[in-house]
């Protein structure tokens, strides 16, 4: 078999594998809107609202860049961080959106749960895709 035909065969087999991933549901469809879990919000929806941003990443990442007016959630001081968020929300009750670094980090969801326990009347979401989605 000539080298060109070998490459064609590799490309065909790779294409078949890719098609299998898409059809079987192993991979999400790249052209589809990503599904939202309960308690999540997309970045474009969050940006359209006047929200209270809460940054649940590391202090270094927060210092480097963060959403405008975002409050830093210090995991080493959850009580103090919660108090800051509560104070800001009481001044002007708005939707609260928490973000961490990316799609796979779970910190924002944990912080959101803790906030819901302390602020049952507030609308609280974690940002789908995290900071990665924000900075795209």
């Amino acid at each position, binding site marked *: 078999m000539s*080298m060109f035909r*070998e490459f064609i065969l*590799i490309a065909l087999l790779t294409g078949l594998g890719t098609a299998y*991933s898409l059809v079987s549901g*192993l991979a999400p469809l790249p052209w589809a809107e990503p599904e939202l879990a309960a308690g999540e919000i997309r970045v474009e929806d969050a940006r359209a609202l006047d929200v209270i941003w809460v940054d649940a990443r590391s202090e270094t990442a927060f210092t480097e860049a963060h959403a405008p007016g975002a409050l830093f959630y210090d995991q080493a001081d959850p009580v103090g961080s919660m108090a800051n968020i509560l104070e800001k929300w009481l001044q002007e009750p708005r939707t609260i959106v928490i973000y961490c670094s990316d799609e796979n980090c779970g910190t924002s969801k944990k912080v959101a749960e803790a906030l819901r326990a302390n602020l049952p009347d507030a609308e609280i979401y974690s940002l789908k895709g995290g900071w990665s989605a924000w900075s795209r």
Partner: protein
Amino acid sequence: MVQVNHRTIPLLLARLVLTWVFISAGLPKVQDPLAFSVSIENYRVVGGSLALWAAIILPWLELIIGIGLLTPWLRRASACTMAALLSLFIGLHASAWFRGLDINCGCFGQSAGAAENPDYHWLILRNLALLILAVYVLRPSWGNKNTPQGSK
């Protein structure tokens, strides 16, 4: 008729190592392309749906060429593709290192305790060693226009 010479065993070992590495790399990423797409985005070269397409296609390519390297019908193109991919990975790691990015390599799928400070020396040296193996495997059959008749 299979021809056996002094290069037979080293070549076979090199192919087995490369096959094992690429199949080990491809399998977990085929099963979780979403996690792999996050790793790709962290390199800040492509993002969004492009990163997801790459995350879906690349693991299958790794699997195919990993297996293909052991077959006479796909050996040369598989070795060639491996060399190209490894060169790409070395370039990406070097670029991430130069830009000071803290990334999860994503080489073998998402690991639970992914290091925030990747060892770029190790990543680049490892891929360089694999690249040398790929070139070593590719060289004997480079001059042949047709599929090799036996192992070399």
